[in-house]
């Protein structure tokens, strides 16, 4: 239905520590999905954009889920979100945005720009575990993802 265990999850995050927290949260839930870590907005565009100036030949499969940190070093995460949402090939891929503060305006803005949902960032791995667990639960168990070219499993 949703994200399958072998499908790629892309994490766009600048701080290495934050990432390790998130990834350990992911692993703590028992998920074995391959994770591609992109450390800057530029890298993300290069990896996700199928053609044009950012094109990167190393990308092999379309990600099933994009986790985006709102604070990137080289550009505003919201700007990146906007750009990603303009690309037809990425329009149907869920993007979950992590915001550093609980400022409501930022979340609202992200929803306006096309985020599928917004989640607050945490400071310890332990805090991430239940959140990521439920996040994965939701996107892999409940949701039907759009999977171009991949047929539905038969009965």
């Amino acid at each position, binding site marked *: *239905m949703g994200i399958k265990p072998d499908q790629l999850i892309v994490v766009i995050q600048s701080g290495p520590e934050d990432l390790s927290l998130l990834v350990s949260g992911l692993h703590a839930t028992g998920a074995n999905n391959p994770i591609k870590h992109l450390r800057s907005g530029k890298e993300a565009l290069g990896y996700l954009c199928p053609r044009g100036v950012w094109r990167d030949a190393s990308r092999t499969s379309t990600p099933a889920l994009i986790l985006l940190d709102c604070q990137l070093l080289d550009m505003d995460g919201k700007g990146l979100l906007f750009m990603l949402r303009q690309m037809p090939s990425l*329009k*149907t*891929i*869920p993007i979950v945005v992590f*915001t550093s503060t*609980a400022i*409501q*305006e930022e*979340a*609202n803005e992200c*929803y*306006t720009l*096309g985020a*599928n*949902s*917004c*989640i*607050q960032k945490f400071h310890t791995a332990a805090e991430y575990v239940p*959140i990521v667990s*439920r*996040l994965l*639960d*939701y996107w892999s*168990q*409940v*949701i*039907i*993802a*759009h999977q*171009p070219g991949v047929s*539905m499993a038969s009965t």
Partner: protein
Amino acid sequence: MVMTPNQPILLVEDSPEDYETTVRSLQKAGLKNPIVRCVDGDDALDYLHKRGEYSEPHSAPRPGIVLLDLNLPGTDGREVLEEVKQDPLLKTIPIIVLTTSSDERDIEECYQLGANSYIQKPVDLDGFVKSMSRMKDYWFEVVILPKETTMS
């Protein structure tokens, strides 16, 4: 981050049986928020735009999320989705498409139009309860939902 209990869920569903099942599942999952039902697309748009029978102030509080069926009499779910996602004030409201169809075209169209999630209604009640429970968990406990900040 957690949804305030008074923020309602808007459930757009024409079938009374499905409505009853959904409400039952959500309540079983422990949802406390009020659930508002609209029976078709026009009704839902009236509610969101606070017009028609919802023009009275406070008669139509802004929903935290919308659960939207696709096949509706009259204005169908896709049109509701498109209109809401193009409205600058309404587009922040997460819309979760809740439908029977597992057709690729429907799924792609909904995501293209800006649906925040797409959930299939299983025939099996137990499965449905589980889905609703996880959905509620995610949207009401994990995610920061948008709030109306500019207008009441």
